[in-house]
């Protein structure tokens, strides 16, 4: 399953990169979204894939059952999900503003700082 996940991560990255390379600023935002997913899954896979044994302490014992999923990558990803959402929201509003101001969503036409 690890190899399959690696392929998924690679494919998501490729999709994200392709969208980032498109000159449309809207596609740029979509690319950012996919890039976030790909990065999260990269960390998740690198942390090791464990089926049906989350790092939760069952009632009656003091520690999670042996073989539990590593909690640290999960904590990192949880933070990353929230932050990438915040960044995405800001970037999306920015792109929208840029479109309203300049009348284009082609990043090549936004090369200069002048109007």
């Amino acid at each position, binding site marked *: 399953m690890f190899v399959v996940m690696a392929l998924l991560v690679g494919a998501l990255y*490729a999709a994200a990169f392709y969208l980032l*390379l498109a000159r449309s600023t809207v596609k740029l935002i*979509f690319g950012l979204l996919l890039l976030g997913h790909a990065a999260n899954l*990269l960390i998740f896979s690198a942390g090791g894939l464990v089926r049906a044994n989350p790092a939760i302490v069952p009632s009656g014992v003091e520690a999670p059952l042996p073989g539990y999923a590593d909690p640290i990558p999960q904590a990192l990803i*949880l933070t990353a999900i929230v*932050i990438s*959402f915040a960044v*995405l929201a800001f970037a999306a509003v920015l792109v929208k503003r840029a479109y309203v101001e300049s009348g284009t*969503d082609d990043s090549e036409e936004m090369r200069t700082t002048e109007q």
Partner: protein
Amino acid sequence: MLWVILIPLAAAAAAPLLHRLLRAHVAAVLAAVPIGLALAIATRLPLEPGAAWTEVLPWIPDLGIALAFRLDGLSLTFGLLICGIGALVLLYAGAYMRTDSRLGRLCGLLLLFLGAMLGVVFSDDVFVLFVFWELTSIASYLLIGFKHEKQDARDAARQALLVTGAGGLALLAGLVLLTIAASQMGLSTDQVSRISALTTVDLSGHVLFVPALLLIVLGAFSKSAQMPLHFWLPNAMTAPTPVSAYLHSATMVKAGVFLLARLNPVFGESLLWHLLLMATGAVTMLVAAAMAAGQTDLKRILAYTTVSVLGTLTMLIGVGTELAIKAAVVYLVAHACYKAALFMIAGSLEHATGTRDIRQLSGLFRAMPVTAISGILAALNMAGAPPLFGFIGKELLLKAKLDLEYLGVVLILIASLANVLLIALALVVAVWPFFGRRCPGVTLAHEAPLLMLLGPLLLAVTGLFVGLIPGTFDSALGSAMATAISGRPIVMELKLWHGVSPVALTALGISAATLTVGFALFLRLREWLAHIAIAVARIGRRGPARVYDLLFASGLALAERVTRLTETGSLHQYVRLVLLALIVACLYPLIRCFPVVSQLSSSWHWHEVLLVLLTLVGAAAAVFSRSRLSAIALLGITGLLIAVLFALFSAPDLAITQIMVEALTVILLVLIFYRLPQFTAFRTRLARVVDALVALAAGTIMAGLVLATATVHLSPTVSEQLARMSKPEAYGRNVVNVILVDFRAMDTLGEIAVVAVAGLGVYALIKLKRRRRAEEGTA
């Protein structure tokens, strides 16, 4: 000894503030610092040959680098020169720039430079020496560019910094190679960069010995203005005169000579060292003396003669015999005294008459008698006329060369030629400004104020005094210095009159002959000056300065072209460039991981693979979708499928968060992008194919990166500890939650701050739009 270096640095920092409090008296007050240091250093006198005090403070023990300082004959002499001349220059500067509002800055920079120079001469660790060496470069950059509102001052400062800075890099490389060689020859880590320890092993057989030697010599040559790296020194004459008197007589330019003298015991056995120093020194000595004869600016004459003397010193260290070392010691001290005096006199003359042109200055003896007497004394010292100290130096120099069998004749010829030129120029400096008809326009000339007379007079009289009673110098200091340079015990007994022996008489004869020819040349120089000046200027335009200009211009052009190439302002190109760099950087390390990765075996279930395939289809459909809203919907589906993957692989918290965030994202994107035009294809078909290939390659690299993580095994101690502590310490059963809100709560606070700031940004962007619309509406 660390205090000796720290005190002037602290005084430098306080100088601007003191200037505000004391106004023009600041220089006199600050001059107390070097005077006190000189007295403190002088308590070690008289110095026995071979005596040395060391002090070692730990700095970077892992690399064996320590703040090691060493006080021996060489560093003590330099320390006295630096502090003594430094004090006189500070006093001089106080009068020279009495009303200038930047006097405080000048004094501060001079003290900074003084501290750095003391650091250079007292260091016993090559890397500590290097740090101070660079500090002198920086301080001299600030001092040469002191009149920074003038273009030529800025250019000269930058030129000096680039030339000596490049030399500094070569020096560092050389020192590193030297220490590598030393450690392989058996020195322990804490000894390997210690200069006094380097002399104890024979490095000449090591393969790195020659490269280290060449690089270190290059660094020293750049600092001591040896041909062909000499051109920055005359240009640096745009600095205020006190700066020139200090940097270009006794200190900065002597740092290179100091380094050569200091490392002479390390390299002294090498033939290459001797030949390199002798050849470069001899060429520099002669060419610089010739170029000095073609100058009309008094300071530039002095600058070129300084280059010539630096060449002489380099050559003498290269010759390396006992007599040569003695000659170098005497010559170095004598030159420091008379050249600093002459620079100060040049400044006084300019102060009084407003010009430094040697052809316009004349007949000033009556108006400025004390300056004139100091000037004549110093210039005679420069000419090597008896009974001054310079005479002893010249006699020794000649005898040192007579001592050599084959090379001696050549060197004596070169030295005599250079000497004739220097004598003529010394006479020019001594006679032209002070005698003859009083030139028009300088009738208002007046004697310089007391503080500006003190420096030149004291230094000139020192030359005379040491010349008449040389025994005081050699017993107190000279022998110890010569011993430190050569690494072998040397006893100096300097005399004005050496009695009747073939060598002494030959030396005396050559000396008399050069004086006579020099005098004859002096008599004709006024007629020839114009022709020589034109010739020198013509050579100067084709010389190494031209190479510097070309290199500088091509450097700027290259920077511009690289900037234009990479900084296009096109996001598309930036992304492409970053991806290509990623591919190139990661390819090789990933290929190396391949053998391990290909062994990976893992179990998989059908439903998991199906889920992954669905995710892929969702992402692909989103990429190629022509409608914005359907793309958003497809991206939402992809995100939800990833949430399910999280849930399958034991990450329930991630799944929950992902579902919530995905829903929010879809709503937000629909709201924002609802009113936008349809996608248009901005790229050509070819560009799309190229982009797709780049994206695929980069994606493959990322997939390889995931697989490569399997080759890394980190010890899970942190995770285990957190999982173990979760229930008993933080009273939480969900370890991930406990990490976020308890163990790493501050990180989560930071995360919330990021979200809040992003929210504020979104709000501001929306409000801005509304307000502008409202304004347009009212207008």
